[in-house]
């Protein structure tokens, strides 16, 4: 079976949902099976949904600047829940204020995220990451989801 099951959503008290909607649309077009949790999610929401759907990857969005607080310990919780092998991505405006791209990426990789997306990352390249990390391009289909 192709690895194409994704859980995605926005973490914390963050209402920025445009990126979430756009990534969802792009993933669906690229043939992924997407469970989109929308906004206002706890780490548990992601983990539970990933367990239920047997997800291959979790995509966490955070735009409003509290990502560090909201994502603290998330990788560990995944491991504890038996999701240590599930890809864990995070992306958005991850820190408050102006920071260098490298600083942000290093910080979040250090927290256990496999990929760290910035506002300049387009849906295409997020999909390219997934294809690389999940192994093999998934078939395009518009009926998935």
């Amino acid at each position, binding site marked *: 079976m192709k690895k194409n099951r994704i859980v995605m959503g926005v973490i914390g008290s963050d*209402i920025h*949902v*445009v990126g979430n*909607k756009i990534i969802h*649309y792009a993933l669906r077009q690229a043939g992924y099976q997407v469970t989109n949790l929308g906004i206002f999610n706890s780490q548990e929401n992601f983990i539970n949904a990933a367990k239920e759907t047997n997800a291959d990857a979790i995509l966490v969005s955070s735009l409003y*600047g509290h990502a560090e607080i909201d994502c603290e310990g998330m990788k560990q919780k995944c491991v504890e829940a038996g999701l240590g092998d599930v890809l864990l991505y995070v992306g958005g405006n991850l820190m*408050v*204020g102006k920071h260098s791209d490298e600083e942000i990426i290093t910080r979040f990789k250090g927290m256990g995220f496999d990929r760290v997306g910035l*506002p*300049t990352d387009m849906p295409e390249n997020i999909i390219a990451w997934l294809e690389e990390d999940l192994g093999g391009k998934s078939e395009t289909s518009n009926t998935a989801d």
Partner: protein
Amino acid sequence: MNKTDYNLANKKWDEDYFLSVRPEVLGMWHTGREVDLDDAVQYHLAMPRMKNTGRILAKAKEEGRTCVAFRGGVATKEGQIELLQFLQDQGADLLPATCDSYTRNLRFSDVEKGIEESIKKGYSVLNGYPGVNLGVAGNRSVVESVRLPVTCKHGSVDGRLLAEVTFAGGMTDFNGGGICFNVVYCKDVPLDVSLKNWQYVDRLIGYYAERGVIINREESGALTGTLVPPCISLSIGIIEALLAAEQGVVSMDISYGQGGNLLQDIAAIRCLNVLGDKWLKKMGYNDMVLTSKFDQWMGAFPYDETSAYGVLVLGAATAALGGAQQTIVKSPQEAMGVPTKEANAGGIRATKQAIGMMTNQKLGIEVPGIEEEMDLITQEVNAIINTVYDMGEGDLAIGVVRAFESGVLDVPFAPSVRNIGLAMPVRDDRGALRFLDFGNLPIPEKIKKIHRKKLDARAKKYGKPVDFNRVVEDIYGISKGYLVQ
């Protein structure tokens, strides 16, 4: 207002009822106990007459001037004072205290931790100003440290306590509304709940107004900031003004966010005042001074700071050409994160320059393109508001609840499940905002045809079908340096 026997209706609250609800609100956090309305009224009456947002905006309307305002909030009183004093000196006309997300969500004990940590770490770990936790005295010390009036900005569906504390704290302006701050900032709050919360806020402002204190209500018509067509912003803004007027609000500004098409944007700004005044008069609200606000582009910004100046200066020029009473400045660091105060200052100075050069060049209905857009907006907005009144059988508040259920009101890209999300905007051949899908918006058929014609023109001009892929392109457009391609 979690439990109350008062059913939703667009009717001014009795003062007794209002006062009976207050203790519950003031009890939400201990600083609520510091609020004494008599003292607050006296405090406001003793303030310099022009240290008042409403008066400054009314004067701007009279003089055809565009005030410059911005957003900004940090976790500590001292930090906020430093920020506001600095930007006052840089030429801002109105000052903000933009609250942090915990405050917005009534997580006041988390705020407390945030403040402590911010003091310890020496930088703000909160993404804004903790208006409630700072208490009446704290807010007053911020207000007293500056020459200009301060607006409380937030995105809270329940701003009741925040309003109480910041008004008593000397702020003269409060942004938001029961519609805009529900569908844009919540996931699943019933409309009647948020409308009642805002009836409270409006009634509180009405209470001050009856005692001679003007507190302005600033509506947030830019909404999700992402390709929101004028008719959506204006319908909601005018409805919020009508609801506020009923509760006794006498000073309000309603707003629209830069879409990028110059003529459409100018038309929308012009309609804010013209249509708003018409509706207020039509419904018998003659006491409200309505002013207009223009948000510089609220969608995704270019990452490069100098390109960002391109966007925000065009916004500034549009505000002045359209004669908005206020423009909210973006900073060149918008795409990166909360801006430094220097970045905010850059946005303000560039904006002041553009306004200074454009303020004597106002454009209006004499320009055929603006007239056409104003006509479209007028028909669309009237159709929507009339339908909302009809759905409420004459009661606007009830109409709003039903309109969102059915999609007669519908905000593109809103995160709330209470928003039907069927209406889908897209740009036309000149970059003006139209509808790819009208969803259930009650737009007259002959106007729908005009939209479709304009989208056909785009398809023809650029040789690409106008479908959802164009919407995605349009969301990124400005951040990549174009409006429509």
